[in-house]
Each structure stands twice: as C-alpha cells, then as structure tokens.
C-alpha cells in the first residue's frame, strides 16, 4: 500500500509539474498579448517588417511550447492509466485473491435476509438482500459477496445466514470453512439449498476447484 501511495504521490508531482509548466505559458501569452501593441506603438512605421518577423518567431515559440505542454499532458494521462492498472494489480493480485459467492437452490425452506462473512474472526462483509435480489438468486444468479486478499496459510471463514426458515420462523445459521491459502486465487461458494428429507434448509460452504 505504501508503494501505491508513493506512486500516487509521484503522479501528483507530475500533475503539479504539468500545471506549473502550463501556468507560466499562459502568463507569457498574456504578457505577449499586452506587449505586442505597445511595441507597435513605439515604432509604428520604422520597422514593420522586423515587427512582423518577431511576431512570427513568437508565435512559433508559443506553438512549440503548446505542443510540449500537450505532450506532457498526454504523458500524465498515460501515467495515470498505468497507475490505475498497477493499483488494481497491487490491491487485488491474482495470487492472493479470495472471492466468496452466494448461491441458492430451491429455497422452499429458507427466505434469505442477510449474509455476514467473517475471515479469521474479522467481519469482512455484511450484505442485506432485498426481495428482488433473493428472487434473482433463486433463479440461478450468483452473487459475489466479497473479494479480497489473504496471505498464504490457514484461515477460518465463517458465514452467518439470517432469514426466515420453515413456518416463517426467524432463522440464523452459521457455516465454517477451514481454508488453506496457497499460491493462486481461491473461490468459495456459500450455497443455500433445501434438505427435503428433514424439511430444513442446508448451508454448504465449498471451494471451487
């Protein structure tokens, strides 16, 4: 994260530099605009050709400076884009990435209200499902409830489901998964399904291979 901050500070410096370059240019343009008629007033007929040549040279200089500023601005924009991509890579690198998804199957014995996710006893997500979202899950939708990074090693993932169970009774159940994080992204699915034999909902936490 410190590295990202440093990169952003550098980008900030680039931007400041670009504006610092642009500001004197405008000042020069204004000064030049003010100076030109004065020069004309001082020697109206003596050296019209010299004046015209000087004006051309000044215009040429301005064009060149303007091109430089435009080029600098383009560099800043390119740098900004590269930093954005770098930030994404650094914040969610594929190797340490963990994503958790929620899915529902049937849902006759459970109406989903919310899912709270804890990793190593720290709450990382708490999502309230609206009626429309719950219906989308029942139609086969999968919701990504969390994306983050984990160090390699053992971790404990606890998912708490709240909602209405059989006979419209408030229902709160937890499911745990011991996760061993190695190299590479890991995907975990929190699946809510019906266990028809016991007329109860079932909460399964499984890893996608």
């Amino acid at each position, binding site marked *: 994260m410190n590295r990202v901050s440093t990169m952003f500070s550098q980008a900030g410096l680039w931007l400041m530099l670009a504006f610092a370059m642009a500001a004197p240019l405008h000042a020069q343009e204004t000064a030049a605009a003010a100076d030109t008629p004065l020069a004309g007033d001082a020697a109206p007929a003596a050296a019209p050709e010299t004046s015209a040549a000087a004006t051309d040279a000044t215009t040429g200089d301005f064009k060149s400076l303007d091109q430089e500023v435009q080029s600098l601005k383009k560099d800043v924009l390119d740098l900004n884009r590269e930093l954005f991509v770098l930030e994404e890579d650094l914040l969610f690198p594929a190797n340490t990435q963990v994503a958790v998804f929620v899915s529902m199957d049937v849902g006759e014995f459970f109406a989903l209200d919310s899912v709270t996710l804890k990793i190593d006893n720290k709450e990382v997500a708490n*999502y309230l499902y*609206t009626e429309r979202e719950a219906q989308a899950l029942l139609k086969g939708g999968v919701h990504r409830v969390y994306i983050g990074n984990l160090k390699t090693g053992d971790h404990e993932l606890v998912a708490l489901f709240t909602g209405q169970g059989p006979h419209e009774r408030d229902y709160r159940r937890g499911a745990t998964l011991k996760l061993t994080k190695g190299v590479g992204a890991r995907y975990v699915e929190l699946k809510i399904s019906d266990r028809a034999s016991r007329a109860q909902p079932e909460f399964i936490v499984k890893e996608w291979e």
Partner: protein
Amino acid sequence: MAALFGGVCLALLLAGQSHCATSLIGQPAPDFALRSLSGENIRLSEHLGEVVVINFWATWCGPCRQEMPALDELYAKYKLAGLTLLGVNIDDSNASARAAEMAQGLKVSYPVLFDDRKEVARAFDVSAMPLTVMIDREGVVRQVYEGFKPGQQKRYAEQLRELLNQ
C-alpha cells in the same frame, strides 16, 4: 437533555469528518441497503428511474417531528408521479423500538429504515439533523437540506415538481 445527548452522539458519530452532505450535490448517491420497519430490506439502487427523497432523522431530534408529517403529505401527493421517500433513522439499535413507535405515532406512510450501524449516515456525510437529500431519476444527488423550519416544505414541493418533470 435527550436532544443534547443526541447531538453529542451525532458529533461523535461524525468526528473526524470535514465534509458535509452538500458536497454530494452533483455526485451519484451512495448506494445502500437497509432493513425497514415492515421487515423488508430496501436498496437505493433498485429505485433508479424514480425521484428519491431520503430523510435522515432521529428520535431525539425535535425538528424531525415537525418535518416527517410534512414529508408524508408530499409523499401522498407525488407518490403516483414517481416519488419514493425513505426515512432513515440513525438511532442506536437499542432505540429502534422507540424509533418505530415514533414513526407509527406520526402515522408516516413512507418506508422507515434503520441505520443502526450508521454506515449510511457516514456515506451521506450527515452532519445536521434532520437532513433531507433529493436524488433525481438518474441517481444523482440534486439537493440537500440541512435542518427544517416550518414552511420549508414549499421549497421541497417546488424542487420535487422540477425533478419529477425531468
């Protein structure tokens, strides 16, 4: 005393924040989902395409008591024209029963939501009570009103008519 306590709570809640809600004008409204008094969960983004008014209130806030019936009148008038009104209570979770009682006592017909984790209040930089936010059909914050004085509902109505006509 209750008002003083509430004010202190609000100050503590918002400690460390230098922004105010008006800075959100012209910005997309932060999305949220909250539990409502009726038990249903409501998500702001599901009301895209409607003009949404969010009214932050608390039981310890005197002007909120005056504002809520006025807002309810506007809701009754413009509901069919595409107005959604959400009352967001920011009391602590142990006071939600009192908040529910107050909302029922004032007979408000619009959905009342509970932000007991104060996440939505933080997202909207609530620094005054009551706070009323008007969001256009595209989900952009168009107006923020801090506090309430009798007669302010006329300005609300004018603004709403403008937003509903867009």
